[in-house]
């Protein structure tokens, strides 16, 4: 919110501010003959008027987006313990790296000779990610985790097809993130759900019963989405490998184990990493991120083409000669600028720093858990949480309020709420991931706010139901948004 003023309590849209004929842009003067489009594009259907874009001066543009930013929470503004998202500090160092002109001004179809800096960087990054995951080769095309999942499952399919082995199903735990089944469906697989046991881990016996020759593979997050390490992972891997099925590692929670435990050692065959989580690239209001996929040697032939290679002469190149490749997943090379940031992050941390990172991420989560789980019990208290923990807010329901209300109250107390209602297997789930970059004081203040909100649920439930009241808008009518469906501005809107 702006620093002052009643007038500025809302921000009109760009279209409300638009005035015909106003304009911020300037273009170089033409030093070639001007051309009449009607003549030059003879026979082509031209627009009568250009699209009705907003018309503003540059100052009003800058003000608009500055004011919009004042209506938005981000890590830079305060704590953001969104479970499964690793909302850690986004280093300005990494932003500076990606902004270097040598990276910014490179055309995607520049010849490899012109791109040696970026290619060398990607090659190193591949080696480091391979080392961290226990894999060997990477594709950088996937633009996010889900894109990586799709790529990975396509690799499963290509692998099995190459062996003449048509398989139909992908097994996914009931605690899995929604992208896992959605990716499996996009890859033409039938989804088979394996239940979690009473302790929040995959029910291994149930799994073993589900696995058969039609199983293409298993998708697993480890630590899983309730924040617990799948202790039987070796047995799980053996069960799948025994029938020729493969294991996919969803790297959303890699921050818990990075530098300490390797998916490859656990038996995974394909891994995606969410570099916008583990390696601290900015989430940008929803993206861009990057979801590089790492594979073991036996899946490498199927990777999307091209892959980055080091030639014998020490130069780097895109290798397009991949006859078994599943093909392309991206129109260019992927979110290279995000990968540059990840490279900077890894170079800064080093192997030693990454161990500190994951250790402190786990410590922070366990510390907050130690401060709040008496009032918000863990969904699965049998095992020690890793980098995040999932509590249940079940107990406050007796007061006629739900975890949603608790979360809205947290906003008034100055904190972005944790992830809630995910994973689905925990009733009234509250999933807290503090990340390693938060200080003990912040964790203490947050824990106190959480306790306060729980206490208020009993003492003053209306306070929770009314919350938030300190925000630019109060609770929004989502039903109306879905019913009336106003998804673009138009001049006849009020």
């Amino acid at each position, binding site marked *: 919110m702006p620093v002052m003023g009643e007038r500025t309590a809302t921000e009109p849209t760009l279209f409300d501010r638009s005035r015909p004929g106003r304009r*911020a*842009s300037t*273009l*170089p003067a033409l030093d*070639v003959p001007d051309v009449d489009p009607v003549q030059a*594009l003879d026979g082509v259907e031209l*627009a009568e008027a250009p*699209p009705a874009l*907003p018309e503003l001066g540059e100052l009003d*543009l*800058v003000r608009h987006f500055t004011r919009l930013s*004042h209506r*938005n*929470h*981000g890590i830079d503004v305060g704590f953001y313990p969104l479970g499964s998202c690793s909302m*850690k500090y986004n*280093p300005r160092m990494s*932003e500076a*790296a990606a902004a270097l002109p040598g990276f910014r001004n*490179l055309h*995607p*179809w520049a010849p490899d000779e*012109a*791109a*040696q800096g*970026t290619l060398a960087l990607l090659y190193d990054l591949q080696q480091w990610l391979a080392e961290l995951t226990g894999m060997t080769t990477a594709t950088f095309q996937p633009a996010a985790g889900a*894109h990586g999942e799709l790529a990975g499952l*396509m690799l499963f399919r290509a692998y099995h097809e190459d062996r003449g082995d048509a398989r139909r199903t992908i097994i996914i735990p009931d605690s899995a993130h*929604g992208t896992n089944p959605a990716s499996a469906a996009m890859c033409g697989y039938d*989804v088979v759900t394996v239940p979690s046991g009473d302790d929040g881990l995959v029910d291994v016996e149930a799994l073993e019963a589900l696995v058969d020759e039609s199983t293409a593979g298993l998708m697993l997050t480890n630590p899983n989405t309730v924040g617990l390490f799948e*202790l039987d992972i070796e047995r799980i891997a053996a069960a799948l490998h025994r029938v020729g099925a493969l294991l996919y590692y969803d790297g959303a929670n890699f921050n818990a184990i990075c530098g*300490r435990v390797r998916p490859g050692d656990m038996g995974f065959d394909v891994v995606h990493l969410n570099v916008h989580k583990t390696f601290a690239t900015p*989430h*940008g*209001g*929803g*993206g861009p991120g*990057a979801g590089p996929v790492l594979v073991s040697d036996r899946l490498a032939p199927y990777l999307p083409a091209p892959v980055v290679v080091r030639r014998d002469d020490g130069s780097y190149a895109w290798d397009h000669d991949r006859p078994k490749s599943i*093909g*392309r997943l*991206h*129109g260019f090379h992927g*979110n*290279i*600028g995000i990968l*540059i940031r990840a490279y900077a992050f890894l170079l800064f941390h080093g192997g030693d*720093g*990454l161990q*500190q990172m994951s250790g402190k991420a786990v*410590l922070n989560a*366990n510390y907050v858990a130690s401060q709040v789980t008496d009032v918000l019990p863990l969904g699965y208290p049998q095992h020690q949480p890793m980098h995040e923990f999932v509590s249940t807010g079940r107990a406050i329901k007796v007061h006629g309020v739900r975890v949603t209300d608790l979360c809205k109250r947290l906003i008034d107390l100055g904190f972005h709420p944790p992830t809630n209602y995910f994973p689905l297997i925990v009733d009234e789930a509250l999933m807290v991931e503090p990340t390693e970059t938060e200080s003990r004081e912040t964790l203490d203040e947050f824990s106190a706010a959480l306790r306060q909100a729980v206490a208020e649920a009993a003492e003053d439930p209306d306070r929770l139901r009314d919350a938030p009241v300190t*925000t*630019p*808008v*109060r609770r*929004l009518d*989502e039903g109306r*948004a879905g019913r009336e469906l*106003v*998804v673009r501005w138009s001049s006849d809107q009020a």
Partner: protein
Amino acid sequence: MDFAPHTDDDLQAMLAAVGRSSLDDLFTHIPQGLRPPGEPNLPRGRSEDETLSALARHAAANHTDAVCFAGGGAYDHYVPAAIAALVGRGELLTSYTPYQPEVSQGMLQALFEYQTVISELTGLPVSNASLYDGGSAVAEAVSMACAATRRNAVVMSSALDAPTRQVVRTYGHPLDRGTSEVDYGADGRTPVPPLSDDVAAVVIAQPNALGVVEDVRAHAEAAHAAGAQLIVKLEPIAVGLLATPGSQGADLVVGEGQPLGQGLAYGGPTFGFLACRTDQIRRIPGRIVGRTVDRAGRTGYVMTLRAREQDIRREKATSNICTNQTLCAVAALIHLSWLGPQGLRDLARACLARAQHAARRLTEIDGVELAVSGPFYKEFPLRLAVRDPQAAVTALHAAGYLVGPVVDTGPAQGAVMVALTERRTADEVEGLADALARIVKEDS
């Protein structure tokens, strides 16, 4: 090095609170065999200063001095300085998917505005809040068309750029999607193809990968007559001049966002856009932002129609997309607002004038001619009288001029694409002409 703020005191106190004696102690329940001793084999951590110096050396090892006449979906348009300053603001940069709308109105409103400008560019009423890139946007549109028509085949113009054709095939393969191509003609335009009754969608590009303006209306009519949908991959600057594909009957208009304020950046991050008619809204992939009111009746914005998405719908979702390219979409919004309607028109006209001039000038050279005859506005294919066009491209790069890509298929196969943005001057065209003349001469 790390960014954790823990002091030794903090570590002691916090470890005590959780009943552990060291960080390692928090991992001892993990089977020992999975915990290799020692550190991973990465370079040792280093200071911010040393890190950035190393990155600067990498950046300097790229050669970005060549004058950029390259096209193929990424163009050297100017990116105004205000964009980086605004999308770099921490409140926007470091936020995530607006799950809590009350504290995310800034991004939500920006996305609502983004959806509006995409709707304007495409001529269709509904836009989502971004996709990964232009290639995957075409693939997602194909899925939408298949769902809408309950058919499972797609016909692509061979004048759709090669990477996008590959992405469509990759996405289609596991779903047994029949994927065929219709060859463009000598004019560079895609003829209206015969369509069998299993065809869900025809995909063309506007202008296409040869730079040539397609007859969208004819394709739309033919597709509709066969019960199929028309998907148009739009190069968005073009609608500064051309009619919007939506107004010409396209059902789905998608595109690569690179020309809209993204810079070259080796092709990423950029974003893909996607727009459709209102009757397709429930099939759209990814986030959509809608307008609503709060409890006090004030206007506000939320993500809407969430029941399409993976976190709610799981394997029944319209797509698996979760993290998208929001910040890129906001950059595009700023770019388009900076341009304004007249700026977009002027920009497109500048491309047209410069491209026409360059085509005229370059085809004056012996052994250089246009490889297609159709109308173009910023990009065109040149047939060079050389043995190996790729070698000519390399030689031109060595001479300081970046052109390309080389056309991979059809009548213009082997031709070299040349693109002119508003930034390319007459002098630069002269320089390119000199270099090209020399290279063609030496080769023949």
